[in-house]
């Protein structure tokens, strides 16, 4: 098994330095950012026999939204999208280190002193799967689709769901020598971190999509133009509800120590909505790897079955799965408005018990960022330090605090519960019952859950599990409700906004860490808007002959191109 875990803890995050001299020509005033690491995986590759074979992976459903990464972040899409559309945008997270930025469809980039202008030089040897050369025009087209509300007559096309994460883009211009300039109305020093998000894939060929949009086919998506991408694999066949077959793209640009990638001849993604069926198919030898996505990730019990049945023929990739938490709706009246009550609840919950009871047996108790996160080793405060002490002692404090708040006889509180997985809700209900709090579970289907979690209709909720490896990216889930309706806790606390503004302005690593710690302390301790309970670990099975997987511990969406994978079946 080779997993290129990207836990290079000594590595500093890539924060480009803006040029402070404003004299001279524009070109001279820029600083070329040298990539921290190359995209090569040389230590893995030296034998020709790594080429060949078809890998068969489970996928939990058909990719939604016509395979459009501008529309959805669903792992059902991104498990496949990496192979078709590539692992990154103009830049990508490096395979060996998720916190470093590597060039992808751009070869280099520069920024000005104020971080408001970013210039990218487009890679010249990249081709779409239909043979057309990838140009700056394609990149501009993607940025325009992502941040503009394209209109033809009275018909409009919505911008990308992540429009806000790209920053305040003022304009996107094509410069000579196949370069692209992106101008922001406010400084954006972390633009590369954002752009390297593997969810932001370029899947929109200008030469195929532009004519459709001009004919007012506004909802045109990658599926509508034949899934023509720039990734290492080209679509061979898509049978909806059954299988997506991709095969090696012979003109893929990326190399590995001189060897062309990808190594394998293709991947069959078989749509298997039921996890039990996936287990049976894997164990009977019909699959080389499991699906990604909630419910398909293994529980401890299912993993034991794999080990019992397959022994050394199977290995397990582990990926941080996001936090299990209790978040309060501060915009709805109730006893939870009192920070003392919220603190009491935080003290009361047995967080270690949540791992086997609610997270399938895999996880650790931590507030948000996992132990492999770059901010962790030097400065991070792990969860127990927020409420140190034995559970018995903490529970005495919790009772005392609840009495002090005037709720010694308890109260009832509603709780939005996702019907797809009610176990965490039942865990919380059982926990709080002993404190005298009746948690009224309001179990809803996916449609209502997706609506409800951005509403203020419910007293409390858990939010979604998706983690963000970038601290700045967490504002969308911890920020004020008016600007961040998907925030776990619904509040309008201006102080939180101020703290995030401070974090985004941090230019040194230490300052960034200190600012993040301040946010954590405010959110989880002083105000306890959110009670972090435990971080889940997602476990995916792979056959032992699957080599060269690059799966970072932090994010299931990264490196899903499988370009470096080979099958050592002997």
């Amino acid at each position: 098994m080779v997993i290129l875990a990207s836990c290079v803890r000594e590595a500093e995050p890539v924060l480009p330095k803006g040029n402070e001299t404003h004299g001279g020509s524009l070109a001279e005033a820029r600083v070329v950012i040298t990539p921290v690491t190359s995209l090569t995986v040389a230590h893995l590759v030296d034998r020709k026999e790594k080429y060949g074979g078809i890998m068969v992976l489970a996928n939990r459903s058909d990719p939604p939204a016509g395979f459009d990464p501008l529309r959805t972040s669903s792992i059902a899409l991104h498990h496949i999208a990496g192979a078709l559309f590539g692992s990154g945008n103009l830049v990508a997270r490096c395979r060996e280190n998720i916190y470093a930025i590597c060039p992808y469809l751009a070869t280099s980039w520069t920024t000005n002193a104020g971080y408001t202008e970013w210039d990218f030089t487009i890679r010249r040897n990249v081709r779409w799967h239909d043979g057309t050369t990838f140009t700056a025009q394609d990149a501009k087209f993607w940025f325009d689709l992502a941040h503009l509300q394209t209109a033809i007559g009275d018909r409009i096309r919505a911008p990308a769901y992540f429009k806000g994460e790209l920053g305040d883009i003022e304009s996107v211009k094509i410069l000579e020598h196949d370069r692209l300039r992106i101008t922001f109305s406010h400084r954006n020093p972390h633009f590369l971190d954002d752009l390297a998000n593997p969810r932001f894939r370029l899947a929109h060929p200008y030469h195929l999509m532009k004519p459709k949009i001009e004919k007012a086919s506004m909802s045109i998506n990658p599926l509508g133009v034949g899934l023509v991408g720039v990734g290492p694999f080209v679509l061979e066949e898509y049978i909806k509800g059954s299988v997506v077959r991709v095969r090696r793209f012979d003109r893929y640009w990326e190399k590995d120590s001189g060897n062309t990638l990808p190594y394998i001849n293709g991947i069959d993604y078989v749509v298997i909505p039921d996890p039990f069926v996936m287990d049976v198919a894997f164990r009977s030898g019909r699959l080389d790897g499991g699906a990604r996505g909630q419910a398909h990730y293994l529980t401890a019990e299912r993993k034991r079955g794999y080990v019992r049945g397959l022994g050394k023929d199977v290995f397990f990739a582990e990926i941080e799965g996001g936090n299990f938490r209790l978040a309060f709706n501060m915009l709805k009246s109730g006893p939870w408005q009192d920070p003392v009550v919220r603190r009491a609840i935080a003290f009361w919950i047995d967080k270690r018990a949540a791992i086997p009871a609610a997270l399938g047996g895999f996880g650790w108790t931590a507030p948000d960022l996992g132990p492999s996160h770059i901010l962790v080793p030097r400065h991070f405060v792990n969860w127990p330090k927020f409420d140190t002490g034995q559970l018995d002692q903490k529970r005495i404090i919790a009772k005392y605090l609840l009495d002090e708040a005037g709720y010694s006889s308890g109260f009832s509180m509603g709780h939005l519960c996702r019907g797809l997985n009610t176990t965490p809700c039942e865990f919380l209900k059982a926990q709080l019952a002993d404190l005298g709090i009746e948690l009224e579970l309001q179990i809803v289907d996916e449609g209502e859950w997706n609506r409800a979690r951005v509403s203020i209709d419910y007293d409390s909720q858990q939010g979604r599990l998706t983690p963000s490896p970038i601290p700045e990216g967490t504002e969308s889930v911890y920020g004020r409700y008016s600007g961040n309706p998907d925030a776990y806790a619904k509040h309008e606390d201006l102080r939180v906004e101020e703290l995030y503004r401070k974090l985004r302005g941090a230019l040194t690593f230490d300052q960034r860490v200190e600012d993040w710690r301040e946010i954590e302390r405010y959110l989880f301790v002083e105000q306890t808007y959110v009670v972090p309970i435990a971080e889940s670990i997602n476990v995916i099975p792979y056959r032992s002959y699957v080599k060269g997987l690059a799966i970072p511990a932090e994010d299931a969406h990264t490196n899903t191109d499988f370009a470096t994978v080979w099958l050592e079946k002997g």
Partner: protein
Amino acid sequence: MQRYIAWRLVLIAPTLLVACTLVFLVMRILPGDITFVIFGDVAVNPEAREFLRDELGLNDPLHVQYGGWLWKMVNGEFGGHSLESDEQIASMIGRQLPVTLLLTVYTVFFSIFISVPFGILSAVLEGRWPDRFIRAITLGGLALPHLLVALLLLLGLLLFFEWSPPIIYYPPWVNPWSHAQLMIWPTLILTWECSSHLVRVIRSSMLDVIRQPYVVTAQSKGLSVYRVIVWHVLPNVMIPLLTMVALQVGTLIGGVLVLEIIFGLPGLGRGFVQAAISRDYPVVQSLAVFLIFVSLIINLLVDVMYRFIDPRISYSG
């Protein structure tokens, strides 16, 4: 008879219109909409959500949405296209219906093939051990849910043979061997349930008929058991049998969601439920209307067939 059929066909139009209206309204009562499902598990700028709602026409007044969809139902577009994937609904049905139809045909064929002899045997040998054995088997078929049977079956295949059915569906004209290896299992499970219904209907109908005076007369005339059953009993069992088969066909075409999911069959039932969860309004509405239409046609066909099976039935008056 012809006037009766014509009248029934005319009635289909208003029935479908009522169905269209009800399905449309029910879908709008459900909380949430497809933009939440499309964006998925991420924080989304509310502005982006509103733009997408505009793009998909979800911000149009309800009567505009209803009128637009109704027009697309009759102008040949069969409801338009999926909000989620932009795929034409007619093409979705064209893809999913053959899978479901094949499963239905296999199931009905095997069910009739099994249930007729066993139903007769059970009735003729009433109270003896073969009858008790057949009734015990049919009891299992009626009581055990598909989910449990399918999971136990898969587990059994894995544990005893280290084998599982293929995970990719192929039509029989593309890969007949793989098709057979996959379809045999859901067909067996459905056949067990379906034939259990049929065996019980045949058995009880036969027991009723066997005690009729004309059957006693036929036996007393010295006719063989075979002739009595085939010529005098079975024709009278056909009407309840046909009714039950029609009901089963309606259920099967409506989709057997659980089995379609477990065996990876991209059929109508799975597509229908997936669209409902996604709040893909045009797809759910159009599929519902299609299934209602199919049910109406099956009912009409059955009513017409009654006339041919039993000449005493008349639709003239």
